[in-house]
Structure formats: structure tokens, C-alpha cells
């Protein structure tokens, strides 16, 4: 018995010692974790990794937190590999940047809980008083109940009301009026007066109204905050999944995989064909082609050779490159873009939100009304005390509970609806700005188009050679080669697994056949001289010596034309603004039906154009993805990016849409407009309620019971109206 006890004890001590060993924790994004089964596989796969103490998946956030002993090099890679083996795509989160947001979440929830507890208990006491007042409740008991209410209400108002007080003080310091000013004033005055009336033993006690008001408002703020945290988390996941790793070459020829953010200037990276370049750098060895569409907007690849600068986010298409990482600030293009973005963000200035604009009319009106009531009662010969009581009752009745819920409730419903369809609305005021726009400016590459090459139809007499070329092409990872293969598959041709294909980096593919050698690659590789023509081209040389060009274009998103037509029908002006070659831009503009287009636009020119439109009184939505669009995205009235966009652009955009469909842009605009309509409706409801009850209050008839009923019903009404947006049909 004693022995067993000792054994048990020692086992526990060992466990404790192990637990005391420093545990590091790493958070990973897991892209395709959809159900409980996935969640379990993820946790089990991670727990099987050596040194992992625990893994806990969070399905709602699509993240998993791993606790493991010590933070050795390559730890994260081991986790990512383990998950890849289990069939999940995972990546490390850049930084623990969202802990502040989730702390704000918890903070609001805690205040909601406290306010809810207090509101329920005070209401219980109040209902007793109201029902007792009609019956035979003694005055002393009534007074006791009021004192108890005060005891609960005072600390609650001090604690739960703090977010509103703080925001109101900030606004007043900046010389502005926002919705929190009348809220804070109403709540504070109601509480102070109720305390005074409790001291006097009067019946005009409004603790229930004040605390219930805080509860409703906090609930609205909490939902708003939680939605924002979710969206920010999802946006962080997108960036985390895109962050690339680099193969870093050591001085001794060793190689090591490092996450992009661990790279420092001077490191040498090996960039394989088809790989994304992880950091800005200068080419040391190798000659290849690089897809720079994300940086410049140009769809056809640029050729690079030693000495040339390459940018993070571009894709190496040809031969492996050795690139020396350089600091970003040495880089003229990126430095320029950063400078332009800072300037653009400054010039956008402070946007005043709908609720705050309403408050700037509402708050003065309410305060003037309160003052007028006070003076009116004073002039008609009542004492100052009664005049003040009635005036404060007016302030309580007009306290904009419904008004302050009107916009956040709608915004939560709208953001939630879009979130469910893969659209992240990032900026809090983004939906309002989107709803105001009257013009949409598109970027071309990667926005209207998919940003991947698509083979143009062949001349009929060349078609039979496609199957042979595709067989050859299937040996390569070059995007053009892949486009040839998929073109052959689309036409129903059989593509055989390639045999004995030799790939010469940066030039092309070759294979010996019984009839002779066949080649696929650049013009020089296939023995063709002369200009390659407008479209990007790949050549195929058959054993017979016959040479066929394959031309490629950047294919438009399947619904691009419909989206443009729909926008124009709904009265939006539509323009195309691209960094690509004139001819390519013109062709795309024609195909989707945009009559106003500009090609060869650098970041500065894009901004200048947007500023010109702004000066004409246009409110422009910029839709773009490239690094070259980032300043324009920041400068426009509102902006939308696809989730394939450059990191900087995603950060600058108000909304990010996922998937191939450009129709998401229409959906965003339609929901934004519907949200604005509902918000205005809610304002109307709130004003109507004021019109009904303010005369009662001015006449001195607003009993605490009336105040409580009026406030709750109007709050519930506006919330119910907002929830309609979750399912309602919306049209642009």
C-alpha cells in the first residue's frame, strides 16, 4: 500500500518536473480543417511529433496551438511536414499579432456578463417596486429596494460603462461629438439623479434603465468586436498561408529551409523553378524568366540575369536562380511604393462614420431639448429641483440606445453574411465607404484576369501536333508548359507520361524519338529567329523540322464580363487601370466591355489618376491585387482585393474576396448598399420612438416604467431589423 503510494507520488513528481520544463508554444494556420474529424487528425498528427506535449485545434479560427519542449531550429517545419503527411496544408502564423484583438473580445464579454447580471437583478427589484406601488408596499421597503439597486448599479456603471466614457472623452478632447457622448451623459446623469432621488426617498429612480441600456449597448459592441476579430484572424491566416519559405545556402554548400521572415540581407537563397522568391534580392547566378505580374501588373514574364534585382512574391519560371537577399529599403521600387502608400493614407484623412455623423446632429438636439425643458419648467413656476428631474428624464428617454445599436447591429449582420461567402471585410467603416461609391476602377492582371497563362487556339493545321507537344510539356513545371498540357486535356487529347525528356533550364525541353529529336521551348531553342510577336510565345519543333508557335494570354475570370455589365447597369462608371502593355490592356478592356482604359500605369500614375477622379467628385472603389496597386488601394475611397493579392495590397484593402469569381465584388457592393439602407431604417425607427416618448418626458410623465419599456422595445426592434440582412435577398 505504502509502496504503491510512493510510486504514485514519484510518478507525479516526474510529471511535474516535465511540466515545469519550459514549454514553447507555436500557432499554426491549418487551411483545410473543416470538421471534427479533421480537427482530431490534426491534433493526433501533431502529438505524434517528437517533443510535442499537447496540441489543441481551434476549428472556428482554423488554427492549432502546439505546446512543445524547447524551440529548436526547424521545429515549425517538422509540424508543417507532419500535417502535410496527414493531408493538411499548414503554415506558421507570422506573429502573435491578434492576441490584443482577442483580449478586447474577452474584455467586452466580461463587461457584458457583469452588466447582464446587474441589469437582471436591478430589474427584479424594480418590478417588485412597480407592482408594490400599486398595492400595499411600505415606503421603507421601497426605499430599501432602491438602495439595493443603487448598490448594484453604481459599481456596474463605473465598470461596464468605461468603454463608452473613454471614447466620449477622446471625442470631446478632439473637439468632436460621437454617439458615445450622449450615451455617457445619459447614463451618468440617470445614475446620479437616481442616487439623489434615492437619498430623498422619491420614486423617480432609473437605475434599471441605466444598467439595461449599458447591457444592450455592450452586447452590440461585443458582437461588433468579435466579428472584427474573426475577420482579422481570417485575414492573418491568408497572409500566413502565403508566406513562403526559402532554401538558404550556407558558405560550406549546405542548404537549409527557413521561413521568409527569418531571412536577413546577405543570405544566399536557391530559388527552384516554379518557386516563389521569398525576399527581395539580387541575382547572383543563373538566368531565367520571372513572373513579376504581382509587382508590375505585366502579364508576360521578365527575363533576369546576374546583377538584376528580383522582388519578393515573384515566381521563378525557368532555371534555378541563386539570389542574394538585400534589405527592402535599398530597393527603389518598394521604397517608392511605401512612400506613396503613406502619402495616400494621409490624404484619405479621417472618414466620419454614419453613426457619428448622425450623432453630430442628434447630440446637440438632445442637449438643447433637455435645456429647453429645464428652462420651460423653471419659467412656468416649478422649483429648480423638479425642473432638473424632468430635464434629466428627457435625456434618459432620448439616450440613443437604439441609435447606437442601429449601425453596429447591421454591420455585424452584413459582415457575417459576407464572411460566410468568403469575403473578409476588414475596415470597420469599409462597408459604409463601399456603399457610397459611384465608380469602380479595376486592375487587369490578377484582378480581371486570373493571372495564369492560357493557351490561345491554334491554327487548324497545327492542331495535331498539340498532343505531342503536351506529352513533352508534361515533364516541366513551367507555367507555359502546364498551360499546353491543360489545353491538350481540354481538347480531349491523350497526354502520355513523358519518357526521357531532357530539360535545359531557361531554354526548353527536348526528347529523342525514332523519327528524330523534338523540342519545346524558346524561339532560340527551337531554331526560330525574329520577333516573338505580341503574345507570350512558346515554340514546338517536330522531328520533321516543322515549327509551331503556341501563344498564351492571361485568361480573364469567367464572370468578368458579366460583372462589368452588371456594374454598368446599376449605374457605376467602370474603368480599367493597368501596368501591363497597351495592347494587352486594350484587348482585355474590349473583351469585358470597358470603354475607358489606361495601360502602362505605374503606382504614381495610378494614384494621380485616382486623385483626378476624386477632384471630379467621384467616389472610387479600386479593385486590385498587385504591389503596384497598393498605393491606389489606399488612396481610393474604398478598395477590394482578391486573396491572391500581394501582402501589402491585402493589408491596404477594405475587403478581400476568395475564389475565382469576380462576382464577389458585386456581392460586396450589394450587401454594403443593403446595409446602409437597413442602417437608415434603423435610424428612422429610433427617431420614431423618440417622437413618441419625448413629449411624455417633456410633460414630466416619463415614469421609470415607461423609460424601461420604451428603451428595451426599441433596442430589440432595431436588432431584429438588422438580423434580416443575414438572409434577405440583396440586389445591386
Amino acid at each position: 500500500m505504502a509502496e504503491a503510494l510512493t510510486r504514485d507520488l514519484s510518478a507525479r513528481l516526474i510529471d511535474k518536473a516535465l511540466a515545469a520544463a519550459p514549454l514553447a508554444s507555436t500557432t499554426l494556420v491549418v487551411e483545410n480543417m473543416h470538421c471534427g474529424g479533421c480537427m482530431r487528425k490534426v491534433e493526433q498528427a501533431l502529438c505524434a511529433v517528437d517533443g510535442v506535449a499537447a496540441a489543441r485545434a481551434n476549428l472556428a479560427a482554423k488554427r492549432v496551438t502546439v505546446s512543445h519542449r524547447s524551440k529548436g531550429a526547424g521545429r515549425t517545419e517538422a509540424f508543417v511536414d507532419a500535417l502535410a503527411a496527414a493531408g493538411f496544408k499548414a503554415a506558421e502564423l507570422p506573429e502573435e499579432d491578434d492576441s490584443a484583438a482577442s483580449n478586447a473580445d474577452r474584455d467586452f464579454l466580461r463587461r457584458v456578463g457583469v452588466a447582464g447580471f446587474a441589469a437582471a437583478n436591478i430589474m427584479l427589484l424594480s418590478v417588485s417596486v412597480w407592482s408594490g406601488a400599486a398595492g400595499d408596499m411600505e415606503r421603507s421597503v421601497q426605499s430599501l429596494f432602491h438602495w439595493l439597486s443603487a448598490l448594484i448599479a453604481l459599481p456596474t456603471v463605473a465598470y461596464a460603462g468605461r468603454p463608452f466614457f473613454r471614447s466620449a472623452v477622446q471625442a470631446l478632447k478632439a473637439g468632436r461629438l460621437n454617439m458615445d457622448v450622449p450615451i455617457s451623459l445619459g447614463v451618468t446623469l440617470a445614475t446620479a439623479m437616481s442616487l439623489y432621488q434615492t437619498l430623498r426617498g422619491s420614486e423617480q429612480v432609473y437605475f434599471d434603465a441605466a444598467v439595461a441600456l449599458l447591457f444592450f449597448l455592450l452586447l452590440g459592441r461585443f458582437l461588433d468586436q468579435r466579428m472584427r476579430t474573426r475577420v482579422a484572424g481570417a485575414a492573418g491566416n491568408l497572409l500566413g498561408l502565403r508566406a513562403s519559405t526559402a532554401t538558404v545556402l550556407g558558405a560550406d554548400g549546405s542548404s537549409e529551409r527557413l521561413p521568409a521572415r527569418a531571412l536577413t540581407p546577405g543570405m544566399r537563397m536557391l530559388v527552384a523553378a516554379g518557386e516563389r522568391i521569398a525576399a527581395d534580392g539580387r541575382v547572383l547566378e543563373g538566368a531565367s524568366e520571372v513572373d513579376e505580374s504581382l509587382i508590375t501588373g505585366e502579364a508576360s514574364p521578365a527575363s533576369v540575369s546576374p546583377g538584376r534585382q528580383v522582388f519578393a512574391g515573384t515566381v521563378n519560371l525557368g532555371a534555378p536562380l541563386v539570389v542574394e537577399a538585400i534589405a527592402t529599403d535599398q530597393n527603389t521600387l518598394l521604397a517608392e511604393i511605401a512612400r506613396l502608400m503613406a502619402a495616400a493614407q494621409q490624404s484619405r484623412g479621417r472618414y466620419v462614420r454614419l453613426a457619428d455623423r448622425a450623432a453630430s446632429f442628434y447630440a446637440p438636439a438632445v442637449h438643447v431639448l433637455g435645456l429647453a425643458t429645464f428652462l420651460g419648467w423653471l419659467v412656468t413656476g416649478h422649483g429648480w429641483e423638479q425642473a432638473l428631474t424632468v430635464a434629466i428624464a428627457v435625456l434618459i428617454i432620448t439616450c440613443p440606445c437604439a441609435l447606437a445599436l442601429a449601425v453596429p447591429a447591421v454591420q455585424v449582420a452584413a459582415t457575417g453574411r459576407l464572411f460566410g461567402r468568403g469575403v473578409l471585410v476588414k475596415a470597420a467603416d469599409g462597408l459604409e465607404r463601399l456603399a457610397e461609391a459611384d465608380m469602380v476602377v479595376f486592375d487587369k492582371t490578377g484582378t480581371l484576369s486570373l493571372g495564369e497563362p492560357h493557351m490561345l487556339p491554334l491554327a487548324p493545321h497545327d492542331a495535331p501536333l498539340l498532343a505531342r507537344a503536351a506529352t513533352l510539356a508534361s515533364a516541366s513545371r513551367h507555367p507555359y508548359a502546364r498551360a499546353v498540357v491543360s489545353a491538350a486535356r481540354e481538347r480531349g487529347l491523350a497526354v502520355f507520361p513523358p519518357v526521357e525528356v531532357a530539360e535545359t533550364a531557361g531554354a526548353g525541353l527536348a526528347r529523342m524519338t525514332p523519327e528524330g529529336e523534338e523540342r519545346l521551348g524558346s524561339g532560340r531553342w527551337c531554331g526560330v529567329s525574329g520577333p516573338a510577336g505580341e503574345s507570350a510565345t512558346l515554340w514546338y519543333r517536330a522531328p520533321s523540322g516543322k515549327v509551331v508557335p503556341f501563344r498564351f494570354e492571361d485568361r480573364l475570370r469567367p464572370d468578368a464580363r458579366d460583372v462589368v455589365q452588371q456594374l454598368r447597369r446599376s449605374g457605376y462608371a467602370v474603368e480599367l487601370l493597368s501596368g501591363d502593355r497597351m495592347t494587352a490592356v486594350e484587348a482585355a478592356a474590349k473583351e469585358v466591355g470597358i470603354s475607358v482604359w489606361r495601360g502602362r500605369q505605374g503606382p504614381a500614375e495610378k494614384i494621380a489618376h485616382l486623385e483626378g477622379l476624386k477632384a471630379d467628385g467621384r467616389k472610387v472603389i479600386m479593385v486590385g491585387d498587385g504591389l503596384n496597386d497598393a498605393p491606389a488601394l489606399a488612396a481610393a475611397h474604398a478598395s477590394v482585393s482578391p486573396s491572391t493579392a500581394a501582402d501589402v495590397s491585402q493589408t491596404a484593402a477594405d475587403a478581400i474576396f476568395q475564389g475565382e469569381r469576380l462576382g464577389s465584388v458585386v456581392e460586396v457592393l450589394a450587401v454594403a448598399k443593403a446595409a446602409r439602407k437597413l442602417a437608415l431604417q434603423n435610424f428612422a425607427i429610433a427617431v420614431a420612438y423618440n417622437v413618441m416618448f419625448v413629449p411624455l418626458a417633456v410633460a414630466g410623465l416619463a415614469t421609470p416604467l415607461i423609460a424601461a419599456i420604451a428603451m428595451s422595445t426599441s433596442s430589440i426592434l432595431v436588432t431584429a431589423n438588422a438580423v434580416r440582412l443575414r438572409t434577405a435577398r440583396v440586389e445591386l
Partner: protein
Amino acid sequence: MTALAWLIPAALFLGGLGLAAFLWSMRSGQFDDLEGAAWRALWDEDGPQPPERKR
């Protein structure tokens, strides 16, 4: 009326108990992943335990 002397404290105590339970469950992260928690209830054996919260 003497009943009030203990009824009211009892009511407040019970309400406070509810509030304390709510604050505790929030602090221990039970509202962090409502979707996942619904699935975990369906697992047969005990899954991995949540990692220690950092203070």
C-alpha cells in the same frame, strides 16, 4: 417582511454564482472555439488536453 432579509441576499448570491461561473468559463477559454467544442463532445475517448494557458 422579514423573509426579505434572507430572500434578497439569497437571490443576489445565486445570481453572483452564475456570474462567477460565466467569468470562470470565459477565463478558461471555453468560448474560444464554440464550433470545435461541439465536435469534441462526439469523440469516444479523451482527446488531447488543452495546453496550459499562459498567464
